[in-house]
């Protein structure tokens, strides 16, 4: 009967620990907000940060705490309408439609339009290349073409074509990961209705730009004079559109002498197909610690 004591000890300690934990949870436990838990379940869980919060958990907690509903329930762009609707119904606010947005590329310098200033053989990422002087492009602000944005995109919406990142608007959900990854800050997240895009971020003067890029903005200010809504201005030697004022009249694009202002075709079908996010695998960090 010598095994009774060991078995008893292990069982006893186990039961004691269980009892202490139960009591502790009862008296000290902090209840997770039920609303927050429900909202979290409704969110996609991609933790992309498109809503402007540090992950889905943070957004859910903020929404649950926000009793006056100052923070909008439709900030989750990857989730789209369905998630916004679900979150709105949990919070008891009116459904406003997801604030859909997508990424635009503010450089058109593919290899047939501008050249490389160096034959770079180093670490093949935009970030590393940018650290080396000011990047391999003849233009300081040109797309570096190593695809840091392609690597971070979870939706396969970006590809490198002829040394230039090209964004597929139909697959883009507007999470903004690429915008953060680009060392030249060439990618901007714009509202869904946007149709006019300035494809240049050059900070060189018009004369210098002409010598190194056949399409770059030469800061002639024709667009600025054409615009009836005061929506486009030349800032730092390139045109910048204020999307809160732009009415998509596309007059600036017609006037532009270098054709660097691009126009998206009018949407034919409003119902946009959203790509599903790649199932978020536990990061290497989490997996290897357990």
């Amino acid at each position, binding site marked *: 009967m010598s095994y009774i004591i060991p078995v008893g*000890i292990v069982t006893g*300690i*186990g039961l004691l*620990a*269980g009892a202490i934990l139960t009591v*502790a949870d009862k008296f000290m*436990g902090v209840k997770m907000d039920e609303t927050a838990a429900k909202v979290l379940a409704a969110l996609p869980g991609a933790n992309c940060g498109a809503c402007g919060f540090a992950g889905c958990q943070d957004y859910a907690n903020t929404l649950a705490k926000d009793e006056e509903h100052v923070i909008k329930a439709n900030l989750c762009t990857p989730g789209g309408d369905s998630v916004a609707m679900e979150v709105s119904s949990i919070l008891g606010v009116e459904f406003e439609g997801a604030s859909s947005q997508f990424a635009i590329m503010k450089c058109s310098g593919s290899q047939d339009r501008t050249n490389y200033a160096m034959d770079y053989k180093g670490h093949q990422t935009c970030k*590393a290349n940018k650290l080396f002087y000011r990047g391999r492009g003849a233009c300081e602000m040109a797309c570096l073409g190593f695809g840091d944005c392609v690597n971070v995109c979870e939706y396969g919406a970006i590809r490198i074509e002829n040394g230039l990142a090209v964004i597929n608007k139909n697959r883009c959900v507007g999470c903004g990961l690429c915008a953060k990854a680009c060392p030249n800050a060439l990618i901007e997240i714009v509202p869904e209705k946007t149709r006019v895009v300035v494809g240049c971020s050059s900070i060189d003067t018009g004369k210098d730009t002409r010598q190194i890029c056949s399409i770059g903005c030469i800061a002639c200010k024709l667009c600025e004079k054409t615009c009836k809504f005061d929506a486009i201005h030349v800032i730092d030697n390139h045109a910048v559109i204020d999307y809160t004022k732009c009415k998509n009249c596309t007059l600036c694009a017609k006037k532009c002498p270098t054709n660097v202002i691009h126009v998206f075709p009018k949407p034919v079908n409003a119902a946009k197909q959203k790509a599903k996010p790649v199932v978020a695998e536990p990061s290497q*960090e989490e997996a290897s*610690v357990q």
Partner: protein
Amino acid sequence: MQDMLIILFSAILVNNFVLVKFLGICPFLGVSKKLDSAVGMSFAVIFVMVLATAVTYPIHMGLLVPLQIGYLQTIIFILVIAALVQLVEIALKKYVPALHQSLGVYLPLITTNCAVLGVTILNIDESYTYIQSLVNSFGAGVGFLLAMVLFSGIRQRIENNNFPAAFKGIPSVLIAASIVSLAFMGFSGVIDGLFGL
């Protein structure tokens, strides 16, 4: 006093848990990518190591030794440490939310970490007194912090280098870890010199 200092410094440098005893390699490789997460994890480890020793030592001496069931040491220590960490997490969440925010993610990860279990068992194998055990656990935790901070710096250098495809990722990290470990072997005589033994 001097023997306490000897125990402390030998736990940090000579018997470094990660680089010399090779315990706790999983968080060492997993969480050392960024400096702030490495530091956060290390402080959680220091905290849990000292706490676990404070609780397991009396259990061993007061319960397992008199009943002559020392062979149950491992399983009972795991049980106690796991419950303890859970309890600490609940208490922290309630009373010190700020600390829970910074340590919270790491606490469940070290519940059954081999370094934590290792330090409690080694304290008993070395037949330390209660106070000496606590000092040794604290030293082991600080040694873990040292290894994590040093290695996270090296990791950041590794990330920015261009390796042949076969060495990308974990292989290059393991090679770097082995070199750091070799460097720590160089500390083996330092305690004798430090305290003039």
